[in-house]
């Protein structure tokens, strides 16, 4: 369902399973439900074929977990209540499914600090300059 060409087709689980079946190397099949246009796309995780060898326990979520993946530039955390690790895993899986349409996971700075630089100019005056938002103090991963 994440495939734009198919977004107008039935949004039921079976169509999601059809999409997932295009990834033979991945044992689990995820049903992806595209409900809205935009950067954050909701998906529902469904574990199918748990014994097929794919480590479904990578995703720390229950069956039917409502996750999100980033359709445009990926930058998590998406929201405060969302789990960044899960997002990274979900984003990776969706990217593996649709590498041309969905980017790899990438965290965004959540807290930026300034740096200060002190130097003499050519006239022996002293300059102290503050550069805002230069150091990432925390990001979506932490």
């Amino acid at each position, binding site marked *: 369902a994440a495939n734009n060409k198919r977004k107008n087709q039935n949004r039921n689980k079976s169509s999601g399973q059809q999409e997932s079946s295009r990834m033979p190397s991945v044992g689990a099949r995820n049903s992806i439900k595209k409900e809205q246009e935009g950067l954050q796309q909701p998906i529902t995780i469904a574990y199918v074929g748990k014994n097929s060898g794919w480590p479904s326990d990578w995703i720390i979520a229950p069956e039917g977990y409502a996750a999100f993946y980033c359709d445009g530039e990926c930058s998590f955390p998406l929201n405060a209540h969302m789990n960044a690790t899960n997002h990274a895993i979900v984003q990776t899986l969706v990217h593996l499914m649709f590498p041309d349409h969905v980017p790899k996971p990438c965290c965004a700075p959540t807290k930026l*600090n*300034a*740096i*200060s*630089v*002190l*130097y*003499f*100019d*050519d*006239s*022996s*005056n*002293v*300059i*102290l*300059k*503050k*550069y*805002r938002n*230069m*150091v990432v103090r925390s990001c979506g991963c932490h």
Partner: protein
Amino acid sequence: GGLGDNHVHSSFIYRRLRNHERREIQREILSILGLPHRPRPFSPGKQASSAPLFMLDLYNAMTNEEDSEELEYSLKGSMAGESRGIRKGYPASPNGYSRRIQLSRMTPLTTQNPPLASLHDTNFLNDADMVMSFVNLVERDKDFSHHRRHYKEFRFDLTQIPHGEAVTAAEFRIYKDRSNSRFENETIQISIYQIIKEYPNRDADLFLLDTRKAEASDVGWFVFDITVTSNHWVINPQNNLGLQLCAETGDGRSINVKSAGLVGRHGPQSKQPFMVAFFKASEVLFRSVR
């Protein structure tokens, strides 16, 4: 740390940068900082001058502010006029800056050396994108008339201010030692003037900017607000004719600046008068994506 360092993350690839890569990174850093070329390194002797010491003090304050949430709390309290952290015995930051603020807050004139960043400066500092100190360019005393024989002149070159910076505050700072014993019980008035117009055969026209009163025993840095004048000079550099300073007794008698205890350019390097200006950037530099 090197490859053998256990703290190094194993996935990090270490290699020595090639010359052209190093130059590229240097160029990138200069570009980020908005500098035309690599700044001159500190030269011996200059560090002990008053302006660099003051700037170093501000730099340490800025750096520690970034590192310490406690200090941020303390400064915010101070800014609100409450000084919550200080009054309630909030623990001083490791470098003692909170303590310094307390000192300068309680006693505008202190015996501290180097010239400390005051609470006043801390407020400016929080808002400023750039702070710049200017050295006094006057090397020889002018021949003033008898009436102004005790006046001292100071000049600062404000044409070196980087592009895109607007002055938000400016101060003239001069150090006062104990006055001559002749003025033991006197109140000394120190006035700073802007030179409006100069004439070949008579005294210049002056405009009074700021006045401070001090006791003979007062020791420390005097700060004069010259914000308006600095803005005027930045916009009209041709009008920058400098400042004049004079000291008077309570009954209006002009006295020798040195006798008043004021340290001029012949005094110790760490007590030389200087000017400092606070700026707000009008343009924002962005990091380029690499």
